[in-house]
């Protein structure tokens, strides 16, 4: 059983094609200048469809994290335990990522991270590296 494949949609293909080139992009509203937590068809604050993409510097902080011991599917079982984190990016958008780990990795809330990329199936996906 494989890990879930990413199937980009009209709203997200800019993000995922950026990841393939190891460029982290985020969507923001050109009307109210708010970054979208995750991409969507309109601005979640003002419902404007005048949405633009910008390149992130790839820096953020840990909003929360967990170490998963009980994986949801066999594909993730060999990775367990693995970290999942919610990252608040400096530009105001949000990512869920895994955390790059070694034997001593112990993240904390508020910890600065840099986003790097890792290959998963056909797609490069973001990965948090602790500062």
């Amino acid at each position, binding site marked *: 059983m494989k890990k879930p494949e990413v199937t980009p949609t009209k709203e997200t293909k800019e993000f995922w094609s950026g990841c393939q080139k190891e460029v982290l992009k985020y969507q923001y509203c050109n009307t109210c200048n708010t970054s979208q937590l995750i991409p969507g068809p309109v601005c979640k604050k003002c419902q404007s469809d005048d949405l633009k993409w910008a390149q992130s510097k790839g820096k953020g902080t840990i909003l*929360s994290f*967990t170490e*998963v011991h009980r994986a*949801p599917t066999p594909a993730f079982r060999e990775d367990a335990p693995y970290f*999942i984190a*919610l990252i608040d990016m400096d530009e105001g958008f949000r990512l*869920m990522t895994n955390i790059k780990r070694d034997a001593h990795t112990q993240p904390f809330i508020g910890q600065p991270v840099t986003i790097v990329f890792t290959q998963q199936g056909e797609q490069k*996906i973001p990965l948090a590296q602790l500062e």
Partner: protein
Amino acid sequence: MSIEAFITGAYDTEVGHLPDSSCMQLHTESALGAIKDAGLTPQDIDGVLCAYSFTEPHLMLASVFCEQIGIHPNFSSATQVGGATAAIMLMQAAALVKSGQCEHVLIVTGDNRLSGMSRDGAVAALAEVGHPQFERPFGISVPAAYALVAQKYMHEYDVTSEQLAAIAVEHRRHAGRHPKAHKQEPITIDDVLNSRIIASPLHLLDCCLISDGGAALVVSAGSPSRPSPSAVQVLGVGQGHTHEHIVAAPSLTDYGCRQSSQNAFQMAGMTPKDIDVALIYDSFTITLLVELESIGFFKRGEAGPAALEGALGLDGILPCNTHGGLLSYGHSGAAGGMFHAVEAVQQLRGNVGVRQVKNAKTAFVHGDGGILSAHCSVILGGT
């Protein structure tokens, strides 16, 4: 004279590991039980609300159910809002009878997700509520998503794992008083803390069960008087919605339960202090703690210490989930939330024996769907 909504019938099946059960059999037993409890016949039912099933999924579950038992209502629909489904169907049924569109609405749920699909299968199916692009590629599960909530909430309000464990222990104590509960053997705080980590900081015993079971209610119009002495009135209802996926939640500490409960309390003309027994969605210990504090039963940071002191026990200041909740009574999909509602009705009827809350006149029922995403609160009143 305005029409009021009353729960006139309530029924729940055996719960736990029921290898001879099926989804539709659990629906049927629950429905016929609730209709009989209401003193009605199936032909009296003119509205039907169903939820969803993992083991017999169908695009039109309510139509399938009506076909199976041979009824032809004036209104029929299925509802899918995860763990908020039961409470939302109750809110919808109340609206249908209060508007005069229906006289007797049947709400029916049931699933055999333990014996019908295995625990692994249920865990994998539930993980599909994660965002397909922005959550699932990272190995998210429902417990992991709630663990993200727990880590942040514990950090903000100094909640300890011991306090969360106290919630699990109290639920097991409640379940020990219910002959049908899935898990009845007592547990200690150490048992919870020593159970294996599922997703830090949540241990196995911080997590709800996976069970087979079904439950149903009949909601009837009362115009204006109470249809029977055992009827329980729907006094207030409300919903709150902030997100579906935890990656898109506007806050990790403030959720839609605040809005849903405010609306329900306002409609009922009550405050949390007026509630005698609370039946609140407890998919994880952290779920209940966040809800108790967001709804206003406790101040921020105070539900955990209160749980340690027995505040949620039968003789506590807020007897909560007196059947044992999803943590110990059982959780069978949408029926999980219905068990809370059925217990509320039975508490208000005053016939639950050793687990009876003394002089229970008001009950607060609350459902949470997704990752604290969709909320519905219902306030009920007995005689």
